[in-house]
């Protein structure tokens, strides 16, 4: 399945490539995407192009000398499950999990799904810069370093403004969920 979405500034193309197998390369950081990411949904909850977000994440990872690898998870819409699966496929054991709305987590192979290294639950607060920092820290964990965590942002009025939109976006993720489909390696262009 291929869908290219033309936008004013960015062209994001998220294409299925092949079934994802455990990575052998210790310098890869997996970016695990939710079912509707980049196909049905192309903008985050605050309308940042998802291509821009991926570009920043990759830049952060590459700045630390590591390589991003994209996979997509189809059998769950739950970020913990998505990221946990990604970490088990990651050569370094580190994965950045992302939902289309922008909610992000850094996961590690030996952790149970609901545990994590760093969690970024309030998507409406994150700009491009934060995603670059997330990429950088993920790469540092992959190198076995113990980095200072990315700063925690918190705005307790975020849910009252965004929870309805977030629910409707989650419905879209749910529509693309396929319980029997295995995680796929993805070709991503942005």
């Amino acid at each position, binding site marked *: 399945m291929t869908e290219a979405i033309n936008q004013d500034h960015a062209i994001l193309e998220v294409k299925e490539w092949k079934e994802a197998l455990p990575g052998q390369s210790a310098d890869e950081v997996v970016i695990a995407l939710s079912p509707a990411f980049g196909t049905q949904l192309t903008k985050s909850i605050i309308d940042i192009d998802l291509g821009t977000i991926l570009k920043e994440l990759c830049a952060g990872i590459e700045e630390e000398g590591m390589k991003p690898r994209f996979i997509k998870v189809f059998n*769950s*819409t*739950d970020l913990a*499950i998505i990221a946990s699966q990604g970490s088990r496929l990651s050569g370094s054991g580190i994965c950045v999990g992302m939902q289309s709305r922008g909610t992000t987590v850094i996961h590690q192979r030996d952790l*149970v*799904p*609901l*545990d*994590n*290294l*760093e*969690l970024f*639950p*309030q998507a409406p607060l994150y700009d491009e810069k934060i995603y670059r920092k997330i990429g950088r820290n993920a790469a540092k964990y992959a190198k076995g370093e*113990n*980095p*200072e*965590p990315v700063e*925690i942002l*918190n*705005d*307790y*009025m*975020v*849910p*009252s*403004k*965004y*929870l*309805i*939109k977030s*629910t409707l976006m*989650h*419905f879209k*993720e*749910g529509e693309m969920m396929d319980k029997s489909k295995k995680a796929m390696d993805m070709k991503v262009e942005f």
Partner: protein
Amino acid sequence: MKRSKRFEKLEQMPINKDGFAYEWEEVGLVCMESPFDPTPSLKIENGIIVEMDGKERKDFDSLDKFIADYGIDVSYAEEAMAIDSLEIARMLVDIHVPREKIVKICCASSPAKVTEIMNHLNVVEMMMAQMKMRARKRPANQAHATNLDDNPVLLCADAAEEATRGFAELETTCALARYAPLNAIALMLGAQTGRAGTLNQCSMEEATELELGMRGFTSYAETLSVYGTETVLIDGGDTAYSKAFLASAYASRGIKIRFTSGTGSEVLMGSAEGRSMLYLEVRCLFLTKACGVQGIQNGSINAIPLVAALPNGFRAMAAECLIASMLNIEVASGNDTAFTHSDFRRGSKLMMQFMPGTDFVTSGYGGIPNFDNVFAGSNEDCDDYDDYYTLQRDMKVDGGIVPVKEEDALAARNKAAKIIQCVFAELGLPEITDEEVEAATYAYSYKDMPPRNKAEDMKAATAMMDKGTNGFDIVRILYENGFEDVAHRLMEMLKQRVIGDYLHTSAIFDEEFRVISAVNDRNDYMGPGTGYRLSDERWARLKEKYSALKPQDI
């Protein structure tokens, strides 16, 4: 159109920054009274439920089956289901019908039946019924203590202040998961420094949370989430059996638990099976019952901005807390999540549980500024204390906490900060300086604290867990370093697990470690002159207003 200046002003009011939505019944975006909710039914053959709410046993999913087999008293079900829902609704507000009779009926009814009873009640009737149906006679309250930096010194001082204010339970969590052991210890030390017998929990991923309890760093757990549809339960990696098993793991170690649910969570997770939020929540409550768990945290919790965006939101939340009480389950009744920009609206929401009283009026009053609340903000925070106290004073209502003098709060904070300084030193954790102790004593928020090296703290936390450090190690450290009083309290909390009395429904401790529960403090409300009434001593504490004018001042 030429604009009205009044309408323009109204548009700018805080309430209009909130999100609102119309109902969408087909996907379950409806609080209660959905045309797609099932019609109540129970058919029993040879002591087994063969039909529930219009579904035959062969069509049961795993959740239906678990509820039907373990959650409903079949011995009385036929009689209970034969009583008209309207009649049961009337019993709820009839002071001549005892609580026990209604509990017996509801425990033998189907989920759709209990949902239908609620459709007959308005909110004042629900509040009246809540007062009567609450399991424990005496209401209580719970607080959140967290900070954005996971600063353990500040957390410990905050917990001590909250315990001094009389919260029966304290809850923390982490901004960074790897801080969990340090946060749990900080909260425990602060809780016992502030008031003997204050229960403490650290809300984390389930395996971590259980381990913290088994180590003796927490004395109860609450974040065992259940959902009302099989899809969502399984999507979260669970089954009814795995939840029941987890509950048993806690019980086997003598640790109090309650489950967590709440209207709106299923639709938020994208799978409501076209049912109303309240009906799905009732299924969670029956599941809780079926797992043998004594209590629930509900009242929507995380989904409240969604529930409150729809018509009947507050009413559905009042209903779900009430139903927990009708099933004889302890209820920690929400009011713990920020959902509105309007102070008028959040105060009104609180009143629906505050006035009748519940086992825990809030399942997390933020005893810290809301921006420091890692649970994404509560409905009340530390800036609201005087409003809360004044409302208790205005209405002669016990909302579970008492006013404290500034010097008493500071003393508790300072002592707690010194205690955690000592414990960190003895456990070989990164140093807590005198400067940090001083800052935590007087702090408003994390912004007032000298920054710590988080990477080092987290590394040390992991090493401490690997070494096998437990609650007894901390008792010994306190005892050997001049904090005998708090050492005794921690030791007593550990001993209580062996005694196990605080596993009874709605249990809390008084300052002498006596259990107050639905067993020995049974709610016997039967109208005026019965049930919970403020003693003169308690009222004297609640009506204290230090700034108020006294006759002798003139």
